[in-house]
């Protein structure tokens, strides 16, 4: 009987759940959803790969590739914090589930050519 007021309130109140996936909630502004990479800014300094706690970032200096393993990434935001060029950002939308462990390959376009003075 003590539960009755709560039960009656629930009878007239709306449901607490959403009809997912028909209705979805907008992610919160500063939520950590997934890693976004800006190819134009990266100079392959490698700080992100060294500091990543989950070994989710690889660099291929020969091919000037920046490789993200989304299956290892724990979205801790460390890479975005340490990037000196702000090439990495964290977007609030979560990444959809995937079936294959595939790396995402980006090309770093801000790498200085040989002979030019390195910014590191």
């Amino acid at each position, binding site marked *: 009987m*003590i539960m009755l007021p709560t039960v009656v309130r629930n009878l007239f109140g709306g449901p607490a759940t959403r009809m997912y996936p028909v209705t979805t909630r907008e992610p919160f502004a*500063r939520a950590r959803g997934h890693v976004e990479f800006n190819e134009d800014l990266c100079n392959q300094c490698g700080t992100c790969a060294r500091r990543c*706690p989950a070994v989710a970032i690889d660099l291929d200096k020969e091919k000037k590739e920046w490789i993200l393993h989304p299956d290892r990434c724990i979205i801790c*935001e460390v890479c975005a914090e340490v990037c000196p060029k702000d090439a990495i950002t*964290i977007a609030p939308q979560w990444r959809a589930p995937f079936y294959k462990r595939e790396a995402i390959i980006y090309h770093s376009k801000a790498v200085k050519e040989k002979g030019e003075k390195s910014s590191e």
Partner: protein
Amino acid sequence: MAPRTITPFGPQHPVLPEPVQLKLELEDERVVSVLPAIGYGHRGIEKACELNEYPKNIYLCERICGICSAIHGMTYCDVVEKLWPLDIPPRAKYLRTIWAEMARTHSHLLWLGLLADAFGFESMFMQYWRIREKVLDILEITTGHRVTQSVSIVGGVRRDIDEDQKKHCIEVLKDVRKEAEALNNVLVNDYTVKARTVGKGVLSYDQAIALGLCGPHLRASGVKEDCRTQGYWAYGDLSFEPVIATGGDSFSRAAVRAGELYQAIDLQLEAFGKLPEGELAVKPKGNPPANEAVSRVEQPRGEVFYYAKGNGTRNLERLRVRTPTYANIPSLLVMLPGCELADVPIIVLSIDPCISCTER
């Protein structure tokens, strides 16, 4: 004498979300003796922490437990800071306190829901978890994630709570308190709840001390012992008094957690009111020096103990974690013999077992 049978309780059991096995020796429906078997969830996190560089361990330590993950990360930072020793800014201390109490709020709401579920009060279980969702939402708004908050770093915190978020949090917390009061009223006064919890798994004051228990489990037996009385982080500035109950049974444990739920919300509101301005973090100089440190922090389930030993490199030489459930499991050997088989789930749940913490 009736024939005795041995019944395995777990490692997969509807009432236990995590793997632990209790070998129950039964005489008809009555438990004669019990033998807990742990080791199903060992992941070698302590060893992995020695192989990682020290700032990376924060994210690993947070994964020791899914419910008190924020406090694990903070305690790790706390113990590594003590190696220098490093004094963190006051605002960081307050923010850590706020997030730790938010974690306690949602952990106790989770446990109260699970208790209701254990004795078949499904609607109350859903109601508690409905409220808990609001707390998880403010955690996500302020820290960026519902479960693994990852807000603490060695030297302070990574994120700030701005004025808008603060206002929103205070509003939500007041709302949560109001709704929790209505539900806790059911928990404390309902006949069915009392019939299933009062007098089940009784531990006296002396037994609780002799067994070396910790957390709400200890306080339910009337022992006024709480790590937060040490005054770490901002607890020294806040008005804090441990919540105790004297019954020592499952009902008292529920009452203590219900009381701590209000207390956690009050502490957050007080900390929001006193939140000082200033820096969020200090940068540690060099690597952790060759030194030893110990940190004791009150988690929702009890006292967590971290020991760290540095050796001047970027890796720690040793990290040791002792979690509250490990201290509380021996009490099952005293509480369970003599009880009915039907009461076993409630008594086991009343210690708030967290097996992934225990085994790491």
